[in-house]
């Protein structure tokens, strides 16, 4: 016996909503999904009329749905935004080159301008080359740090006012769990924020319009809308520890589907005791990017690559920052510690 839509009470339901347990038909689901993203955008005051907004596009499900919905809502509700797609080419053959093809198709389907910035042009290193030097253990660190800056650099080239990313509710909940497991109280406190204000020169404000959208609904939205997205795992091994958190989260969701939202609610209502030390945000003395150290992570990682000491940016070597800044050579002992990565 087919279940009927709890909204129109008329058509056959096609999905059970994890957030609320309701069953919706296709049309009512589309409407509710889009309306909810719209509500998020409006109540969180994410954009202003006339702004230029870069959509971080990877070709994956989240950013594909984000681009689709942003374009649709911008027209439906007359946001008056100028939308662009912004992609980062990490230089991973067999993965990113394929997914960028998806982005290029999206560009045509949605008729949005597209800017691709590559690690190679920004840093002189592709991820393929980085993996060759550092091995597969820590390459995600490089990729994550470089991408954050790459998006900002791309945004500056395009002169966009804001970047929106495809982080969904599951991603946010996972980050809350990760920060608890890492004991990272500073990030735990801010990771549920829906937008970051401009933190300094060279940093473009970011926001997450899909913050309250479940991954399940994003995937089904893409499926029912027949959106063109790319779904291959990065060929370089993903972060194993994060994998544990992901599995835990999916298990939680299967026990109580609202858990994802419940975790976000927890994150939004955490209160850190007065007097707990927080890192002070400053700027990198080399490139001017925000950093809590004298050198930003990206510059340290790059220095490590260029000096052939890949471990420089892995773990904590803050006391070496002065030496790097003044371009002094490292001692032999220091060099030996930072050379190849063998675990």
């Amino acid at each position: 016996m087919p279940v009927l839509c709890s909204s129109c009470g008329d058509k056959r339901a096609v999905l059970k909503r994890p957030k609320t347990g309701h069953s919706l038909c296709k049309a009512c689901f589309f409407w509710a999904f889009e309306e909810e993203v719209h509500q998020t955008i409006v109540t969180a005051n994410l954009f202003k009329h006339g702004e230029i907004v870069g959509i971080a596009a990877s070709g994956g499900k989240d950013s594909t749905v984000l681009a689709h919905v942003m374009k649709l809502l911008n027209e439906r509700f007359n946001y008056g935004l100028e939308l662009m797609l912004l992609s980062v080419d990490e230089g991973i053959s067999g993965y990113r080159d394929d997914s960028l093809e998806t982005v290029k198709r999206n560009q045509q389907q949605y008729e949005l301008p597209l800017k691709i910035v590559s690690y190679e042009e920004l840093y002189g290193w592709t991820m393929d080359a980085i993996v060759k030097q550092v091995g597969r253990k820590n390459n995600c660190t490089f990729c994550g740090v470089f991408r954050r800056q790459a998006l900002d650099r791309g945004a500056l080239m395009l002169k966009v006012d804001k970047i929106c990313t495809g982080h969904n509710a599951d991603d946010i909940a996972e980050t809350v769990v990760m920060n608890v497991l890492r004991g990272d109280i500073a990030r735990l406190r801010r990771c549920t924020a829906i937008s970051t204000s401009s933190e300094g020169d060279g940093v473009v404000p970011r926001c997450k319009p899909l913050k309250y959208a479940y991954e399940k609904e994003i995937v089904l939205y893409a499926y029912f809308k027949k959106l063109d997205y790319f779904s291959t795992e990065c060929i370089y091994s993903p972060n194993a520890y994060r994998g544990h958190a992901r599995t835990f989260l999916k298990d939680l969701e299967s026990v109580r589907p609202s858990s994802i939202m419940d975790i976000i609610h927890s994150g939004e209502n955490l209160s850190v005791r007065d007097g707990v030390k927080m890192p002070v945000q400053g700027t990198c003395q080399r490139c001017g990017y925000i950093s809590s150290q004298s050198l930003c992570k990206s510059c340290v990682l790059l220095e490590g690559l260029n000096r052939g000491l890949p471990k420089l940016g892995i773990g904590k070597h803050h006391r070496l920052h002065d030496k790097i800044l003044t371009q002094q050579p490292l001692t032999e002992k220091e060099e030996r510690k930072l050379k190849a990565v063998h675990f």
Partner: protein
Amino acid sequence: MCQVEEEYHGPLLREELPSVSRQCVKCKEASAAVVIRAGDAYCRGCFKEYFIHKFRAMLGKNRLIFPGEKVLLAVSGGPSSCSMLSQVQEGLSQNAHKKLRFLPGIVYIDEGGAVGQSVEHRQRTVEELRAVFRATGFPFLMVPLEQVLDLPSSVVLSAPGAPEQEAGAYKAAVDHFLLSDGSSGVTAGQQQETPPPEVQEAHTHSLQRLLGSARTLTAREELLNILRQHLLVHTARSAGYSKVMLGDSCTRLAVKLLSSISLGRGAQLAHDTGFSDSRYGDTILVRPMRDYSAKEIAYYNRMFSVPSVFTAGLDTKTADKSSIQHLTESFVIKLQANFPSTVSTIYRTSEKLQSCKGSASAGRDRCLLCVCALDTAAENASAFSATLISEQLSQTKSPEESRQAPEWTAPASQCCSIVRGELCGNRGRGCCSSAKASEPPPLRSLLCYSCQLTIKDMSSEEVLPQYILSEAETRLRRSQLREEIRDFLLEDEADEG
């Protein structure tokens, strides 16, 4: 997806297994008997000293337990609370190095009825524990959980506590205590052999019906925790105890922290996992075992013959995914096996949190069940309001469906005024489509976010104990009254609603 916004502190490395040194790291003489953390191997003697010191240090550091104060030890029979009991005994003994100076009593809550144990089984457990308690010389109470059904409504009110102690108060109290009669009164009273109160079968049935009305084990466990805590606080209050000591270990608290987060209790984390929990105002819950890992406790109890009595809980022998609490526990324990710093890292977070911002005034602005400040003000763009919006949108017709009703517009509201026209492209309809989300049913409005989830998992609210239902009625009547006279109130008073 990859996390765009993160820079890693470097990976969480598996700690290398230390080569097991044969000697104690402390005295460097005796051969090691127990490895506490990677690399820390202690001999028997040094381990005992370290364990005992840690208990005093925890109490000394927090300066919360005053000399001469009556302190109720909540002992479940499990290894951790039994270890706590033995530490209190140790600390009060004449030859203790830094003598503890409070007056202890013990309470055991017999939950056998909740987990469906036979009367004989429950009696056996009670007798075993009675023997353990009798040996301490402390006064003790054996309270069947069924008694929770007869509690007064005052339990779910946060009573005004002692005024905030000034910095010097603790020291002054210690000096005063030493001057007056530091020697007498080791216990909070004499041991009395009162027969355990009769448990009526009908009461056991009501309790089982209450817990059974929870459709999920997750909700059942939450409910049981709440009832247990109410009964503990009530027992303490009526017997004149101002502190209740709980036996939560570091391992237990790490699990609790993560499961509390998963249950939407972020705002209540500091209460749920901190050293002291003052949500009840006059009666403060403290967790002096929070620095010990389950492993340390197990070793200590075994080496120094601390007796404990196994009692089954709701989740004993259930599958990993039977409840959120159980799933979290097995997740943390498995992770700890691979990454030995997991528990201590999670646990340290609990030290850095404080209870809910804008600490609500004592009394009725608190959750009817867990007695923490309410965290359900539906602020704009919060997970709570997003869920309410989803609930509403999943029940109303989409505009396509209701095309015949073109006058469909925003219910008087919110969003336009909030965005001040900066971004409100609505042409007649749309923007404010669902500003005011549906009101939760009455009783639910008196609960915090997480307890609302618990109640949502129950088939009926009617089975809740009378003390909760009647307090609910009182609160709802008051808020209704407030609503009715709203127009007559002065502006600033009306705001608080």
